[in-house]
Each structure stands twice: as C-alpha cells, then as structure tokens.
C-alpha cells in the first residue's frame, strides 16, 4: 500500500520464545498490523506502519522486555501458581 512503511525486527530464537513474542504481539494488534515468521534461527517480526515507526518499535521492545522478565519469573513460579489456583478452586467446592 502506498505510504505504508514496514518495520522489520529480528530476534534470536535461542534468546526469545515464541510464546513471549506472541504475548507481546497480542498488545500490538491495536497499534499496527504485524506478522511473525521463523527465518532460520531468527524470529522475523514485521509491522506495517505509517509515520509512527519509532513509537511502534519503542512500545514493542518494552513489551518484549516485560515478557522476557515474565518468562524468567514463570520458570520459577508457574507450576506453583497453577497448583495454588487448582487448590483454591477445589476448596470452593461448587
């Protein structure tokens, strides 16, 4: 489309999981259409943007950073979280 720029970002597959990327991309849909592809050992994220390339990049990188942190936290607490939820729902005894 005329006037539409493409912002292409690459992330090493070894450093970022697909889940973290997709969780970050979930919040980007409102801002810009996106695609995610695997190219060799890298994730290729492509945004369609107008004049807001810097804003999109900033917003996305912040989200990615947050989801990397969440992923680190999940690796330590995710099972426990599920166990707590399961126990709580059982205690409610519907």
């Amino acid at each position: 489309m005329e006037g539409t720029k493409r912002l292409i970002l690459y992330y090493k597959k070894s450093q970022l999981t697909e889940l973290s990327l997709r969780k970050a991309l979930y919040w980007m849909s409102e801002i810009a259409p996106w695609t995610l592809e695997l190219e060799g050992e890298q994730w290729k994220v492509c945004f369609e943007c107008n004049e807001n390339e810097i804003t999109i990049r900033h917003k996305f990188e912040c989200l990615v950073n947050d989801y990397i942190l969440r992923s680190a936290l999940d690796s330590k607490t995710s099972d426990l979280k599920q166990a707590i939820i399961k126990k709580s729902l059982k205690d409610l005894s519907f």
Partner: protein
Amino acid sequence: MTNYSPLPFNFKLLSDESVVISNLANMYHVLPNKKDLENLISDIGSLDADAVDKLEQKLFLSTQDDFEAKVQLTASSFTKRIHKDLSSPRLIMIVPTLRCDHHCSYCQVSRVNQNLDGFDLPLSSIPALISFIKKVESPPYKIEFQGGEPLLAFEFIQEFYNQMELAVDKEDFTVVIATSLSLLNDDMLNWCHGKAVSFSTSIDAGIKAHNRHRKLITKNSFELTQKGINSIEEKLGKGKVGTVTTVTHQGLSGWDELVDTHLELGLSEMFVRPVSSYGFAIPKQAKDVSIAEFMVFYRNLIFRVLEDNKKGIPIVEHFLFIHYKRLMNAKDGMYVDLMAPAGYAKNSILIDYTGNIFGSDEARMVYRKYEFENLVLGNNNDQDKSLDIDFSEQILSQSFNFDVPGCSDCVYQGSCGSDPIYHIQEFGEPIGNKAFSRFCQLHQSVFDFIFELLKNDSNRTVLEGWMNE
C-alpha cells in the same frame, strides 16, 4: 543468610518508572523502579532489607521454612476472593415500561414514545414476578426499576410495592427508581414518604451537554432533574437520591461544573463513567469519546474532588472509590462490572416489559439490538418452564480472569472483572481481544491512576477517609 524465593506475581510498569506488583492473594506493592523488579525475580539478595520485609509480609517472597504456610495463605485468600464474588447479593431489575418521555442520543435500549401501547408490563404480571424474585434470590431483596422511564408506569411500581409488602417482610426489600425525574410530582413523592424507596438519576457532565443529549421537546431536561432532586430532598430527606454521570464529548471540559452542580444540589456523592458502549449506543458513542479523552476529564475531576475533600468539603466519587475498594480487598467492594467470575446472572437479573428475563441490563441491551436469543433466560409469564441457563453457565465458566489471554498476566487481575456481555457484543465471544477492549482500557486506566494518586499522602488520607465513613 536467609534464602528467599519469589512466589507467583504479576507486574506492570507505570509511566513514572515505578512498578506495581500483585499476587493471587490480591496484595499489591509498588517497587520504585524496574531494577528492583529484576532483582525480585533473579537477585533477591540485592534488595534492601526493608523492601524484603514488606515483600515477605505481602506474600511475594518465601523462605524454605515458611513456603508451605505462605502457599496455604495465598490459596486461602484466592479462594476467599472468588467466593466473595460468587456469593454477593443479586440486584433484581424490572423494566415496567419501555416508554420514555426523553429521546436520548445515546439510549442503549431504543426506547419508544410515551403514548404507545404494548410496551408495558401488565399489573397482572406482578404476582408471578414476586414469586420469581422469591425463587431466585433470598432476602433482603434489592429491586431497581429501570426503563424507558419508570415514572410513566408509576401505578405498576405502587402495585408491585404493595404486593411485595404482603409477600415478604417490609424490612426485607428496598426499591430504587432509575429515572430522569422529569415526570416526578408531589403525589408520587407523598406516596414514597416513609417507604424504602429511593431514586437514581442522571446528571451529565456539562448542563449544555445534558440538555443536548437527553432530549426533551421543552429542552429543559437538566432543569427538571435539578427540580426533582430538590423536591426529593425537601420531601423525603437527604440520601434518597443518587446520581450517575455520563461523560460525552460535549461534556469533556465540564469537570468543575459537574462538581459545582452536585454541591449546589446538596449532593455529596457522585458516580462518573464514560458513555456506555452497549446496544443502540454503539455507533453514536464510538464516534464520541475515547477512553484516553475520558481519562483527561476524569483525572481533572478527581483532582478537583480530592482538593475539595482536603479543604473540608466532603464529596465522594464512587467510580474511583469502587476501584480503590477492589484494590484494598474491602468487604463491600462489590461492583457488577468488576467481578470474576462475572456478575452476569449471578449478581444481577432483569425482567423486561415483555416478561423476558436476562442476566443483566447489558444483556437486554445487546438482545434488543442483535436479537441474540441465547441471552433470554426465560419469561415471567411462563414460570412452569425452568430457566434456560446453559448459555449463561457457559458465559460464567469463561469469565474467570486468571487464565484468559490479556488478563492472565495483568497486574490488576485480582481487582478487575470480566464483562462477557460486552465482549460478546464486540468480539462475538465472551473473552474478546483485550488489546481492543474498551472495558480493559477503562479499568486499567483507573487502576493506574489510583496508584499514581496514592504516591501523595494527602490523597491517600482522603481515600482512606472514604473507607472509614
């Protein structure tokens, strides 16, 4: 040296670089910066002792010794919170008529002209209505008459009240009439005297905006509301009328005027929210006011309200207050929009002018617009048939917010709710895409704003004062 481990939590970075964290026990804590967040996840030893102490108390950190106890405590708090949302009382709404004297630009239910026939609940439906109420809810019953304009069906309200008094203890029910007050007269007020009847009315932001959107041929909707409030306070006393404010584009600069109007009318409570996006209001509101625009208005309004409180002028804004109560796990922090599982059907039920029964007011709005039959649970005229709750059960089972996209990572998960009817309307399914959800934007913005306010001790004092009233 004590060996700490983090317990599960969610987080969000705020605009001033601080970080809000929360856990399944719905405890909140604010970290001063992202570095502390990173340390909490990977290098707890580098956090200062005071921070560690607070994080331990709030169930964000455990040691080997107290791990089991803290997990138990978290699970029990989580259970308690869900139980609270499951067991709070149900509001019974009755639409005695769809007729209305107003023609509001953002009407959600597509009201009909006041002289039309066929849009009223007949008086003969009252015994079945009361029997239905007694079947689905236990006392004390909270009944709200909605419209259309319920004062056009005042005879119905009177007859319902009289029969209700015979069917249950007088102390076991209260009635609220949601009305523009334009048709209120002395006979009605005299009848209300000494009864458990109160009024809920609308004062929009900006008198001009009020009259522009709440259309009457006489173009004096606001003046009639003002007159009605004065009459209620004079004849029935204080505390018998509450207000709800809708903020439209035309009212976006009217925060001071709105507070002044309330104070001049002797009202010390207000409830302010953006124009709602249900039913027939969608195309009109979508062009009208965004959540970002609403928040500019709302922030100014709240700053004004807080300043007034600091000067000794008591005025409470309940939309903010209910969000604050949800964050503080207050006992009475129940609000049908901020519940997970959702308040739909379990905390509200509505019987409309046809006798159709819905799980919420919003459900009837969506039904009126899209004729979505699944939202009709049954009909008051056909009580031999049991309610069709299959679809409602499906909706409710998907309205826990700890495991749905967009909510599972959200720091406000434990205080927020889920609004399946809104998301069905917008996305065709009850969870929806939160990146596009007006519901999500609004409530996140208000929660963020509260954490910003709490950084100032004098604001905190005002909010705590509201809690203690």
